[in-house]
């Protein structure tokens, strides 16, 4: 039985014009889970609830098997966080922030901090607000990784970073995962990052969970089907999450590759969908019927 580091059960959170509905999923210890979805579908809200910056209206959230009501400090001692905005004092330097973080965490490790500072080539006496976006991300990472956190929660860490730095970041995270004891949960809408690092994918849309699966499982279950429009009728359309029609035929996403393959046989082309394909078709499918005409 694999251990869950994060467990959400039927979490609800309502805002005047948006809500997270009946959200349940778990994050496994020792793996990287990518949290995907479009803009404004509830990713940041969920991350804020995981950090106890927001409290759910209903449902339970447990982290390391504990809840925030009773164990807020114990939980947060074991989490490292990275946000996509600068959450540090404007006038502060890395050294100032180090002393603030150091006094907060029981397991703060100066040696580790200086290792990361050196590795990331960060100027510790320069004001953080003068850092570039990439340096800022490295600074956040150095501060998040220096207290031997077991769980790293990141909100859109790769957004706004150039491709080279995104790769570097993924390498850093990769080496962080080496001992098998650490867990990473991060949201992103740049799904190509996940190909390189994610073991699990949790996908939400409009505040609802679409799925939470192992990466390889998605590849086994989902497929893009391409074929002639004549193949589509009321029965066959039911097989798809959404369909895109064009003059050349149709393109559709199925979550049951085996059945679709059985149904259409050699008359269609089966392709491996990217996460972007899955997000795109799921959004279209949720918006209104399965049909998309282009």
């Amino acid at each position, binding site marked *: 039985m694999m251990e869950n580091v994060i467990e959400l059960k039927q979490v609800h959170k309502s805002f005047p014009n948006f809500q997270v509905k009946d959200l349940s999923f778990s994050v496994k210890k020792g793996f990287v889970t990518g949290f995907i979805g479009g803009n404004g579908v509830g990713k940041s809200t969920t991350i804020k609830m995981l950090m106890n910056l927001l409290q759910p209206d209903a449902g339970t959230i447990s982290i390391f098997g504990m809840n925030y009501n009773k164990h807020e400090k114990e939980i947060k*001692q074991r989490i490292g966080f990275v*946000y996509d905005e600068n*959450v540090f004092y404007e006038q502060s330097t890395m050294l100032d922030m180090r002393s603030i*973080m150091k*006094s907060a965490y029981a397991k703060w490790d100066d040696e580790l901090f200086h290792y990361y500072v050196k590795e990331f080539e960060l100027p510790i006496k320069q004001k953080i607000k003068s850092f570039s976006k990439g340096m800022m991300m490295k600074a956040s990472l150095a501060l998040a990784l220096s207290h031997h956190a077991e769980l790293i929660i990141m909100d859109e860490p790769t957004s706004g970073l150039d491709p080279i730095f995104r790769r570097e970041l993924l390498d850093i995270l990769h080496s962080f995962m080496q001992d098998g004891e650490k867990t990473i949960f991060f949201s992103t809408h740049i799904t190509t990052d996940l190909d390189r690092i994610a073991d699990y994918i949790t996908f939400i849309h409009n505040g609802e969970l679409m799925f939470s699966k192992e990466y390889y499982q998605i590849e086994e279950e989902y497929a893009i089907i391409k074929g002639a429009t004549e193949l589509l009728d009321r029965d066959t359309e039911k097989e798809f999450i959404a369909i895109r029609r064009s003059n050349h035929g149709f393109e559709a996403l199925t979550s049951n590759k085996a059945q679709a393959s059985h149904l259409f046989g050699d008359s269609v082309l089966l392709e491996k969908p990217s996460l972007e394909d899955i997000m795109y078709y799921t959004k279209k499918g949720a918006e209104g019927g399965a049909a998309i005409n282009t």
Partner: protein
Amino acid sequence: MLQLIRKDVMLQKNTLLIMLPLLVVYIALNASATILSGVLFTIAITMQAFMLDEKRQIHILFNSLPYTRKEIVTSKYIGVFCFTGLVLLTILIANLVIHGESPTWKELLFILCLTTLFFSFSLPFSYRFKSQYLLFASIGTFAAYLVVINVFIPNLHDLIREVVAFLLAMEQVQLYVLVGCALVIVYILSWLLSIRIYEKKMF
């Protein structure tokens, strides 16, 4: 929680290095208004510390660190006394060095009482709204005060001076205890209210 208070003092290092010498200069120039200067300097320094933490991003930072919201609020309420203490100490030493006499303990106590009273109201207000609105609230209060002076009680200033002089001349220990207790209760209620407000905040 001690870490949070220490952090506030550390971050105010520069402000303190400017404000406290300024207070000394003020005392050297004008020895009579000890209470007023003490109260104003304490408020200025403490509010500066409060405003620095008022940004949404800083709330996110401290709420993500292993602190509870209760601790974050409590640290501010204790911090008030640290800053008041620093100001009182400066007043005491400056007066002793410059004028060769210390202010009466009653004056110092009076400063403590007034700042306690001020923060009892301004801290929950700042947590609920934002401290920048405190300026508007103060201007409103000041306007009301001017109206009161001009229209209703023309000799309000003299009255206040008399009341202050009367209070400072008081020898009844019981009264001091009573006022002290009342203030402690107001401050504790204010603290509990701020915690309630802050626990419901969303960032």
